[in-house]
């Protein structure tokens, strides 16, 4: 058994939320640069280059990438040989609260009914998985509401098949249109059940941009949907162009013989996430 103190978790989370909000992952910057080189429309090109400029400004550490510094999603992969001293959920939330204060980040979490802001950007959403080993991996995603609001889940049936999946994804992206800050990264969860599909879709967003699923059928579907989305002419920030999606990533899980759950998590171009292994 390896002992990890909860203070250590708080400190790690505090740094992760700050880093995630100021430093855009380099795979995303590269994908944006590449798209800028390929775009033909002037407005589209201009927007993509400005995204790169914004990344450069934010990484100086004074202004976060976006004013919507998000609700925090924390993914914990806990090794089964790890013993955590103290309350792990309290530790994660303490890290979020401290990070949002120290990093001059916006507090964007409110009670769903009274709409009163909690003032601390907590609580955050925590997902926990138990894995073999004696380490703790923490991944922080700071997800803006513009894109999260356009995400969707639908219970399709086996007869809907691949065509049904493609139609649902396309409709969801069309509805997101210019509103959720394209070019998008599209995470798609297929299978499981009502709550598993959106979890898969969100986790897909953590993959490296442009990476292919190791499953042959899933990889083929990613490619097909990617091509279709980039024909919609939504383009960077909706001003038209060939870059509507930077990446489409599919994750699957077996499902009931009677169902075909599908979830689409729309991610804006400012895809902020960071991991650490303790």
């Amino acid at each position, binding site marked *: 058994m390896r002992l990890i103190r909860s203070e250590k978790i708080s400190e790690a989370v505090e740094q992760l939320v700050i880093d995630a909000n100021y430093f855009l992952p380099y795979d995303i910057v590269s994908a944006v640069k590449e798209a800028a080189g390929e775009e033909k429309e002037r*407005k589209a090109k201009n*927007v993509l280059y*400005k*995204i790169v*400029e*914004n990344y450069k*400004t*934010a990484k100086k550490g*004074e*202004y*976060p*990438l*976006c*004013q*919507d*510094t998000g609700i925090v999603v924390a993914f914990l992969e806990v090794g089964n040989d790890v013993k955590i001293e103290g309350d792990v959920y309290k530790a994660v939330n303490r890290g979020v609260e401290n990070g949002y204060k120290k990093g*001059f*980040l*916006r*507090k*964007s979490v409110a009670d769903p009914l009274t*709409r009163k*802001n909690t*003032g601390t950007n907590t609580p955050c959403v925590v997902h926990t998985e138990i894995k073999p080993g004696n380490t703790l991996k923490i991944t922080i995603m700071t997800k*803006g*509401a*513009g894109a999260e*609001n356009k995400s969707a889940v639908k219970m399709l049936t086996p007869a809907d098949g691949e065509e049904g999946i493609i139609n649902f994804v396309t409709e969801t992206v*069309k*509805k*997101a*249109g*210019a*509103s*959720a*800050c394209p070019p998008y990264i599209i995470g798609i969860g297929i299978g499981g059940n009502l709550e598993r599909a959106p979890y898969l879709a969100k986790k897909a967003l953590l993959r490296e941009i442009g990476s292919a699923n190791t499953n042959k059928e899933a990889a083929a579907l990613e490619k097909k949907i990617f091509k279709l989305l980039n024909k*919609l*002419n*939504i*383009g960077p*920030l*909706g*001003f*038209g162009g060939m870059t509507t999606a930077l990446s489409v990533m599919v994750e699957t899980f077996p499902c009931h013989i009677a169902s075909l759950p599908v979830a689409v998590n729309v991610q*804006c*171009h*400012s895809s902020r996430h960071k991991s650490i292994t303790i």
Partner: protein
Amino acid sequence: MKKINAPLDAETIDDLTAGDEVLISGTIYTMRDAAHARIAEMLAKKEKLPLDFKNQVIYYCGPTPAREGNAIGSCGPTTSSRMDKFTPMLLELGIKGMIGKGERSTVVKDAIAKNKAVYFSALGGLGAEYARSVEKSEIIAFPELGPEAIYKLEVEDFYAVVIDDIKGNDLYSMFHFS
């Protein structure tokens, strides 16, 4: 690129067409979900409003906290459609411009044309860059709403694109339908 001043006059608005890129200088006011709801409540109760909306430009934005010595934190646009429910009310109050991002409802687009106003998109997800265009900021109403308070901003060369103009043109529908 057209250089325009806020608040907006009729002549400036007449000259704007969907697709135009503009640099806005002058005074604009931030307002998002909660501030819109408050204004609606105050109107219903016939209370005195915190500002005269005539000819003003409203910016759908909730900035991050400013560091010492800075005018503001990150301050890009939020999704405009969430404000659609309140927009005809604000147009009746006299606003002439809105800055946000994304598509508006048909009702709002009609109200924009009818009230001879204009809807701009700022560039979403570029909050750090937009901080450079803000020279001064001051909370003028609802400080208890935190990032959702109404901020009066003095801006210079604030980049935006005209989406909906007085002739009823809509830039987004020239490319795609949602």
